């Protein structure tokens, strides 16, 4: 038990430091340096001018969802309900229908995600056996004026393009 005794050197016990005022003036000199530098040239502010200058979104960022498609444009999703079952916030609602293009037996006829409920945990992406749902759109700002439009359907999910290239996504290793 007595092996690790670390003696910490106490600071702030000298007379000058006890006066406070010297230290106060030192601190004020530091902040004034920042103020003066920024006042003379406001390009040096550590600020991103957000709505005009967008942040760089890496490939691993879990943004808004999208549904992927095969090369011929048919939906990859087979309506297996894995994502819906895994979802901790119950925001995915799938309705399965019969599939006629011969790839599998089912396909989703309805695929709704309630973005107000979604917590962007990414479990749906990990659960998907077909790599059909991804969160690689890079959309980080999901806003709306009403609740109804926060419910996105199959159409929106399929038409949203990927935010990064396929190689980058694979390298990101989600």
């Amino acid at each position, binding site marked *: 038990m007595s092996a690790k005794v670390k003696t910490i050197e106490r600071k702030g016990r000298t007379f000058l430091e006890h006066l406070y*005022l010297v230290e*106060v003036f030192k*601190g*004020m000199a*530091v*902040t*004034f340096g*920042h*103020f003066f530098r*920024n*006042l*003379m*040239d*406001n*390009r*040096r*502010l*550590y*600020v991103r*001018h957000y709505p*005009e*200058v967008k942040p760089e979104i890496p490939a691993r960022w879990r943004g808004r969802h999208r549904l992927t498609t095969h090369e011929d444009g048919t939906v990859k999703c087979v309506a297996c309900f894995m994502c819906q079952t895994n979802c901790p916030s119950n925001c995915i609602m799938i309705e399965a229908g019969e599939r006629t293009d011969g790839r599998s037996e089912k396909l989703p006829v309805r695929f709704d995600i309630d973005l107000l409920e979604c917590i962007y945990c990414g479990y749906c992406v990990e659960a998907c056996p077909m790599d059909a749902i991804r969160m690689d759109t890079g959309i980080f700002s999901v806003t709306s004026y009403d609740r109804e439009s926060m419910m996105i359907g199959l159409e929106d999910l399929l038409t949203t393009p990927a935010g990064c290239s396929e190689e980058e996504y694979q390298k990101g290793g989600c």
Partner: protein
Amino acid sequence: MSALDILLVILRIAFGAFVPLSFVAVLVWMERRGAGYFQDRSGPNRCNVLGFRAGGLIQNIADAVKLIFKEDIVPGHIKHKLYFILAPTLVFITAILSFAMVPFADTLVLNGKEYIMQAIPADLGILWFLAVVGFGVYGIILAGWSSHNKYGVLGGLRAAAQVISYEIPMGLALVSLLTIYSTVNLSEMARFQGQLLFGFIPMWGVFLQPLGVIIFIVAAFAETNRTPFDLAEGESEIVAGFHVEYSSMKFALFFMGEYVAMFVSSALIVTLYFGSYQIPWFSTETLVNHSKPVVFLLMLAMPVAAYFFNIWMKKNNRSQYERPNDPRVFEAQVYAAVIWSIVIFIEIIFLGFLIFSSGAGGARILVALLQIACFLFKTFLMCFVYIWVRWTLPRFRYDQLQRLGWQRLLPLALLNIFITSAVVVSLA
């Protein structure tokens, strides 16, 4: 009473009432933009009217509109609605009233009559300030108590204890100041500071009372409930302290009261210790007797200042990212045109003064205006120090606050009185 008397009464009262109020807007702007610049961010700069941002000043209008149109809530659990509503008005009224005795220019002599440049031309001076400011804390205590809220009561109690322990060092620092000035009248104090010490140092309070000025400034910070002594508010520990139950304009009154109090105590620090309206090395009589060379120098200095300000503005007032046809460049051009036309306007007035002025009346009015400008500039700098300190120092713990007040400042103030009296007696 002649028409001139009435005009001057109106002007002085207007100055005493509206200058603190308009400084609220300036100070809120300075606080928010200044805080931004101290912390390497930009502060509110997006609000605009037709693309004109005025460096972020438009944000104040948006804030005011928001505060006016918010719902004015009186919570249901409040039993004494009168006191609840009275509290913010008390804070605000005392803050504005305490400015009434501060002189903002030397006594104006027109047609052989003397006009004391204070909102209320009385001799009470510093006593008025102490009485009215001491009353201001009643508003805070009343707000905390009538809110029927734990945090509110805690904030009110803290404010009460803080004011008691810091009024004493403040008063004692003033006692040693009064032994030097041997008057309580602020106008006479200001006139005293127009003299020169050893013939070359302006006889300001800060040079005569180097210890007293520190004690007084620390105590003034505590009086106005600003960081590092903002325990009454303490938003990280007791939410917002005394004004936690207030909303809308009642909150705005507290808010404005705080900033007016800050302005007034800056004005008082300037009046007591930093030479009031006195322009260093230029007494009122010197300025009046040499009004024409002074005006000529001003005429030379103004375009130079405007030129450098324009360079600074052109560099900073533009979008800091790729933007085709940057509207902020146009904005800066409009500001430059406004500034140059103001400069030309004032130059024409000065030119007229140089050519047509003959009597002392015009010169005296000019000197009074110069002194008002000097006073406001000094006060502005002192307000900046308030903001600077706020964004540098963390809040004191409560026991540290009391220890500083009673164990450090009180003995120091007593020592200061002892030294000052010894020196004054030995010199007399």
